[in-house]
């Protein structure tokens, strides 16, 4: 572990700021004083935060949660297309009916998609990209559907078995 003086001898302040963050005080009293001051600042910025900025924060949170879920190897039954769609609408503080009107989708269809009683049509996905001004691109929603489909195919053999009767010829070997 190098001392600050040693580090300062080797690098310019600019180089240090680019690649280093030093630990703060280890003194609990000093740390609490600093945090108390920070809280005052935090309160101030929260009090002047606009509604638009709050909405952006909420939507960014949703987008990053979605991205991380899509990049994870695990499947979570709760995180289906309808869940993220419902969250998108909720964070915009809109009623389902109002949102359905904005993207010209039948409110019943929207409700069925949200409640997982119906698969979303392509047009809904494309309209979501347009409604969100490309902040939630169609490809993201399709990846979500693909993840759900992959899980279904892997875990529900009946999906494939129900088609068995239609295949009259198959390969005789297996790799």
């Amino acid at each position, binding site marked *: 572990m190098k001392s600050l003086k040693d580090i300062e001898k080797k690098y310019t302040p600019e180089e240090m700021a680019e690649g280093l*963050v*030093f630990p703060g005080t280890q003194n609990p009293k000093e740390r609490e004083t600093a945090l108390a001051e920070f809280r005052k600042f*935090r309160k101030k910025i929260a009090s002047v935060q606009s509604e638009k900025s*709050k909405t952006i*924060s909420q939507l*960014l949170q949703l987008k990053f949660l979605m991205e991380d879920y899509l990049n994870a190897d695990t499947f979570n039954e709760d995180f289906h297309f309808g869940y993220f769609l419902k969250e998108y609408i909720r964070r915009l503080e809109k009623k389902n009916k109002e949102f359905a009107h904005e993207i010209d989708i039948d409110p019943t269809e929207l409700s069925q998609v949200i409640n997982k009683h119906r698969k979303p049509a392509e047009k809904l996905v494309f309209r979501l990209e347009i409604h969100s001004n490309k902040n939630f691109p169609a490809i993201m929603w399709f990846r979500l559907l693909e993840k759900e489909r992959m899980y279904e195919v892997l875990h529900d053999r009946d999906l494939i078995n129900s088609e068995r009767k239609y295949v009259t010829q198959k390969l005789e070997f297996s790799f």
Partner: protein
Amino acid sequence: MLLKDTATGNKLEAVVEPVTSKDFKIIKKDNARFDKFDWNRYERQEVYKLRLKNDETILGLTCLTEHTDEATNAIEIELLEVSTENIGEKKKLDNIGGCLIAFACREAFKRGHDGCVFLTPKTSLIAHYSAKYGFHHIALKTTQRPEGLMVLYGNGSRKLIKKYLEQ
């Protein structure tokens, strides 16, 4: 997120992941590359590493502390270190520090803190954290801590995420 090879100008894809106990052993052994701080003191905290997508070599480390109480509502960058060969004028890869700070900003949005991130600067680095990453300086009204804190939030955090993570 992309790093830049300073010799060729090529962009290289990188990832940020949680540090495992195996990684801590590597960091301890490889202490010439991470010689500024004692990372093993932070083993029980939230520590992340940055590496190239196709290479296991650790290129940067950061320790984050999440302040979930309503009044603080932010993520603190407690510690950050870029590997020795990637810091200073002879660095091989660029943007490691920026990607790690932008990662903290992204986490601060993802966890519902409005992108609010802060760190404790050394006095000589205050202006540079502002110039390089857009941090705001809060001068604390205490005699013990003349350096204050550096804060990034909202639009400032979004800009950093766009610059370093969404290239």
